[in-house]
């Protein structure tokens, strides 16, 4: 019985006062109960992209991952390219297509396309992932990001749980110390 009461109280708090739980004395790690719950259950909403970018189409035309995600071999971050990168080709290519017109509209206004991240970790996980050593170790992009050749809009094909990382690290004799990734 007391579990039901607690559940109801939790619901009420979450839905009622917008779940804000901060005051001068008590400052929690998350701003709302909803945010805390999402973090705890590792729930992330699927990314809603402003333009349905088709990876399939671009890869089929011979583009490489690193043509747009340029810095992945040199540093920690693969990065989501700026609309400037799109315009390198699309100022000339397929300029009449409606989606390309949308891209060009962003570029003309000086506004970057508001892509939403597909992969990532919550801040509280304190994961410091570095792409470059993985690329040097010849890990394929598809291993962690799924086969983009089959996808239009990028989907979270692979669940980046800690187990996923640790399993591969164990197999490849990569370091497994906490401090390797969490610092």
């Amino acid at each position, binding site marked *: 019985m007391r579990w039901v009461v607690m559940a109801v109280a939790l619901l009420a708090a979450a839905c009622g006062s917008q779940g804000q739980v901060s005051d001068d004395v008590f400052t929690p790690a998350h701003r709302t109960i909803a945010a805390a719950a999402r973090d705890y259950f590792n729930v992330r909403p699927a990314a809603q992209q402003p333009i349905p970018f088709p990876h399939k189409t671009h890869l089929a035309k011979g583009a490489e991952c690193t043509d747009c995600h340029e810095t992945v071999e040199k540093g920690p971050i693969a990065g989501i390219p700026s609309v400037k990168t799109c315009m390198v080709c699309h100022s000339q290519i397929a300029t009449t297509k409606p989606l390309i017109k949308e891209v060009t509209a962003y570029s003309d206004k000086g506004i970057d396309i508001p892509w939403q991240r597909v992969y990532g970790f919550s801040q509280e996980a304190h994961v410091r992932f570095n792409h470059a050593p993985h690329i040097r170790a010849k890990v394929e992009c598809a291993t962690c990001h799924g086969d983009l050749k089959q996808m239009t809009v990028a989907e979270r094909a692979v669940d980046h749980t800690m187990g996923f990382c640790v399993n591969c690290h164990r197999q490849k004799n990569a370091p497994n110390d906490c*401090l390797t990734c*969490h*610092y």
Partner: protein
Amino acid sequence: MAHKWGMAIDQDRCTGCGACVTACHAENNIPTVGASQAARGRAMHWIRVERYWEGEFPDVKLKFRPVMCQQCDAAPCEPVCPTYASHHTAEGLNAQVYNRCIGTRYCANACPYNVRFFDFFNPEWPRPLDAQLNPDVSIREVGVMEKCTFCVQRITAGEIQAEAEKRGVKDGEIQPACAQSCSARAIVFGDLNDPESAVSRLARQERGTKLLEELGTLPKITYLAKQTQA
């Protein structure tokens, strides 16, 4: 052979300027807590310069001693952590894993050097101070413990770079922010497993002692005592 990171701090060179303290704040995204929280003892100086007076005017002397986490090989903060957030790594560092930490603060209680700090609040950086934050270092949220990591982000970056260039890490290549900024070169960082490294040589000096050695914590920082002039 695996690295064993250690430090030597030369109290004969240290002039107490505090550059190491500010450099550490800049490198490690340490929040500025403000006057009222500082008054409650919550200022977070991962490295601090202790100063001790000796004697009475006019025969008065003063001694400076920079103190940060000693990365003890028998760290008292490690066995008391219920979640393995504080543990020892193969390279000799005392790791503080923020995502494991649940904020019991037993580690700070156990630490005899008082070098562990608790985040009583979520850090705030009034814009655009947040643009200065180091992206290689975590922002710690409320409820976790933090402390000097020997700039583990620099160690990791140095090791990854060396691996990319298919070579070993050179002595002196990796410099924590405090050692890098010290104009008197009082702080020396390096591999204690390399007997020829600068830190190993300094650690062998007769002037060298360890802080609170008698407690058996096996700290990895050798303090070189201020010499007296003949």
